[in-house]
């Protein structure tokens, strides 16, 4: 694993290459006997602090499962997984929930927001759950970054899809988690809104120093990342640094071809 920080990320050198999350020999098996499906096959990977990583792969490759297991949303069948210094393996539901609450931010494809809460309340929800007061200055900064200042009192139903996802990003950022996991965050958006959201995610890494891991099947989305990890059949098969969407697309095409040949 490289220890230098890619200059292309545009950040200074203030961050040492410390992993924000990592997995060793991570295995996830569904079902038993005849119906046994190996979703993840001894995957070892690390996500560095202050880096924007995209996980790519064809559907069924296990990319979402990898994210779920590493974010503490799903149990693992073998190996280990950690967030910061904390080993997830063997944690009870209560500790795991606390860990997600305090150290992880999430952006999902849909159903990110509670319809009964307004935008601001949705953004501060993780802090409310933890019973913490949000850092007003930081909150201000996050809200401005995602461009929601004028819409904080709006309910989700009064916001466009793009705006809703920006609220979700703001929520993930507001609690200053150690790592943000985004699961197809642009899957339901048109390309312009999608580009906006991806821009914010990248900015949060470059300007605010966040760590972001994003699962996507969209080469354009992956093009925003500092690093792309390719998954196929539950294994990491390749990775790219500072990719362009064309490079990603090429890579995907090769997998597809390979898949067809084999």
């Amino acid at each position, binding site marked *: 694993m490289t220890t230098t920080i890619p200059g292309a990320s545009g950040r200074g050198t203030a961050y040492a290459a410390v992993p924000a999350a990592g997995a060793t020999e991570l295995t996830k098996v569904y079902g038993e006997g005849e119906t046994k499906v190996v979703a993840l096959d001894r995957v070892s990977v690390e996500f560095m602090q202050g880096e924007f990583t995209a996980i790519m792969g064809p559907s069924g490759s296990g990319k979402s499962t990898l994210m779920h297991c590493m974010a503490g949303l799903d149990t693992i069948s073998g190996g280990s997984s950690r967030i910061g210094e904390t080993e997830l393996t063997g944690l009870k539901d209560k500790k795991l929930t*606390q860990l997600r609450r305090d150290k992880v931010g999430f952006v999902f494809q849909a159903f990110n927001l509670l319809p009964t809460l307004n935008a601001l309340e949705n953004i501060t929800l993780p802090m409310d759950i933890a019973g913490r007061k949000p850092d007003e200055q930081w909150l201000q900064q996050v809200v401005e970054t995602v461009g929601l200042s004028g819409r904080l009192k709006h309910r989700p139903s009064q916001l466009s899809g793009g705006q809703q996802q920006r609220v979700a990003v703001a929520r993930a950022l507001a609690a200053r988690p150690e790592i943000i996991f985004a699961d197809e965050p642009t899957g339901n958006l048109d390309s312009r809104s999608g580009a906006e959201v991806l821009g914010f995610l990248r900015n949060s890494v470059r300007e605010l120093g966040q760590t972001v891991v994003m699962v996507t099947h969209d080469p354009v989305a992956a093009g925003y990342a500092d690093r792309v990890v390719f998954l196929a059949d539950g294994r990491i098969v390749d990775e790219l640094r500072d990719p362009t969407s064309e490079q990603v697309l090429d890579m995907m095409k090769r997998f597809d071809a390979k898949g067809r040949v084999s």
Partner: protein
Amino acid sequence: MLRTALRNVFAHKARLLMTVLAVMLGVAFVSGTLVFTSTISDAYTKSSEQGFDHVDVRLQPDEDADEGRPGDPPPLTQDLLDQAAALPGVKSATGNVAGFAALADKDGDLVGDGWSTSGANYYPATGDGGRGEDPRYPMQDGRGPENANEIAIDAKTAERTGYEVGDTPRMSVDGPVLEPTITGVFTTDDGNVAAGGSLVLFDTETAQDLFTKPGEYTEIDLAAAPGTSEKQLRAEAQKILPAESEALTGTKLADDQAREIEQGMDGLRTAMLAFAGIALFVGIFLIANTFTMLVAQRTKELALLRAVGASRRQVTRSVLFEAVAVGTVAALAGLAAGAGIGAGLRSLMGATGQTVPDGPLIVSPSTVIVSLVVGIVVTVLAAWLPARRAAKIPPVAAMSSVHAQASTRSLVVRNVIGAVIAGGGALMVVAGTTADDGKALMGGGAAVLLIGIFVLTPLLSRPLIALSAPLLRMFGVSGKLARQNAVRNPRRTAATASALMIGLTLITGLTVIGSGISNAIDKMATDAMKADYSVSMSNFTPLSPEVEKKLSELDEVTASSPLRTVPVAIGGDEEDLTAVKGEAVGQLLELDFAEGSFDGLAEGVPAGGGAAKAIVDDDTAEDEGWKTGDTIEVTYQDGAKGTLTVSGIYHGNEMIKGIMLDTSVVNSHVDKITDFEVWLKTEGGESGAMKDKLEAALGDNPAIAVMNEEDVSEAIAGLISMMLNILYAMLGMAVLVAVLGVINTLAMSVFERSQEIGMLRAIGLDRRAVKRMVRLESLVISLFGGVLGIGLGVFLGWAAGELISSSLDTYSLVLPWERMGYFLAGAALVGMLAALWPARRASRLNMLAAIKSE
């Protein structure tokens, strides 16, 4: 379409379970009531027929005959019996004497609570030289009673109490304690005994002493000789019949009794069915809610059906078919459960001492039909609106990816309609409080008000639930989310809370009225009571004058008076005079005199004749136009006439009213002197020791109650709270259905919000907090229903009280705060219990399945 409908029923069986349960409970209540009442009345009817096996014709005083003579018709004499025995076609004639006889068990407690214990005479058949046996009461053991110190008891009672021939149980008929020897144990087909009562037999002379007068009978039974029909015998008997008496055939007696039982059962049946109706009505909310939610969840499916060419009517029909299927299953299950309830109620009655005659469990065809029709009709009715709503789903909804949203249709129209209905209902109720005959107006108003409030509940839900915000804030995010979830779908919340509201409105209203009445009766009974003790038979049958005499002879008793009812005729109308001891009554009774006083009451009839003084209550005085100094002409039972002078007018109430005068004026004119109460003033006032002393003086008679003011209050309160408890038990069914409704709503909400809950879990809400969120939502909805119900109940209770107070002037509004607190706590408990399962489900939700997009 039928197949689609049926498939749906099976596809959503877990969700429909609550609906089935609700319909089932209601139907079970209905069919249980019908099974129970028909079983009981059938058994009673059979036992009443048994009771008349030995009777072909019965001669008895005619209660309806009015010959201008005050009081009951004259009893039948020995002469009549002798005459009847000599009639052609009579095989035997039996003179009956019957009345109340209390029997104490070995612990000194009353057998059968003093209500169903009777006494009668053992009438040995004449014929065999006068030393025969009474064919009605074959002796299982020993022989019939022959003198005043002997009795026989029925075998069932003997078995229950453990008495045997030779035992000397304590017993009492009208006060004095008797300790006769049991000489026989008999079997009988007497209906009362079959129904769990006890029967004590005396020899005829003793029975006459106790119940009538020597040589007098309450009934004469004739048995026909072979070859003589009932009718022929009756025709013969008519010839010797004295005035104010009648001759009835055994068949007619049995028919009359059966009809009476049927009528008695009718009242019970109507009351029980009313409560079943309430439970079913509450069930309608639950069913309508379920179908609304099922339709909402199936929006896409139904839209697809429309898109592929199903007409609106077909969609409506498919939902209704589903309702019919659910209703049928639920009604059948309810019917089965109802038979169980019927059997259970019978054995419950048996367990509480009110033994009922044995007989088969009757499930009549009409019970089956009524139960099925009720179950199906109610379900279809409740599903009607949701079915129409389903038909309005546009086919395009099948293509849209948007999840079915709660109806956002404006509530404005609904609110205006609701406000008008509720306002109208409230006005009707208020108008009813002052109207001359406000009952119908008020009842109608109450129903209209309830409907109006139901229509308004969605509007009321927001502000009322907002009130809970400060409390819920203590629970952090869970509390906040719970509050917002509770008002998220106002219609659903309203329907759920309304179901609970109806039950609690009735419960609170009845409790308010009950407390007021209890208080009013208590005031009536105790306000005027200056006496330290009131002595009466524990079942309020008449007391022998011996009791007052014995008590007045005690050194500790400083003043005493009986309350003696004396039937008289005044200007052709029958009245009851109340005779008291004139010299003592002033110390025992405190009356509010408008004019005059107790003075002079004790003088009785002046020496040499003339008018005796009497006091009259103000209502009677006003009705009759009497003033002090006026004279009243009365005709006594023995035909003698007397004159009374009104010497005082007092303010009476339901318990103390009418014409009051001295016992000396009337004693000689009464057939048989009986008192219904004795009042005592004792030296040093009331005390536990004094009560013991008084009871000892009466031979520690279990049939006599010696009560101080507190005991009287307690007895009244006990009676009212027993009635309330029965009503609570009945209304509990409606509350139970409402609980099912809350469970159902929550389960649906959890299901609908599974993605949201998954997201919350992902971003850090732990299982406990999720559970708490669901529980608090349930709590908020239940308390909302509770507050509405209690509020409405108080209002209706107040209104009904206003109506009652016009005829019961000691009535005043008493708000039972403590009980209302319990009801609110009960509503909260309902909420917590109802949330158990849905909350658990929510906390166990698979986070990933919930947040994974399709």
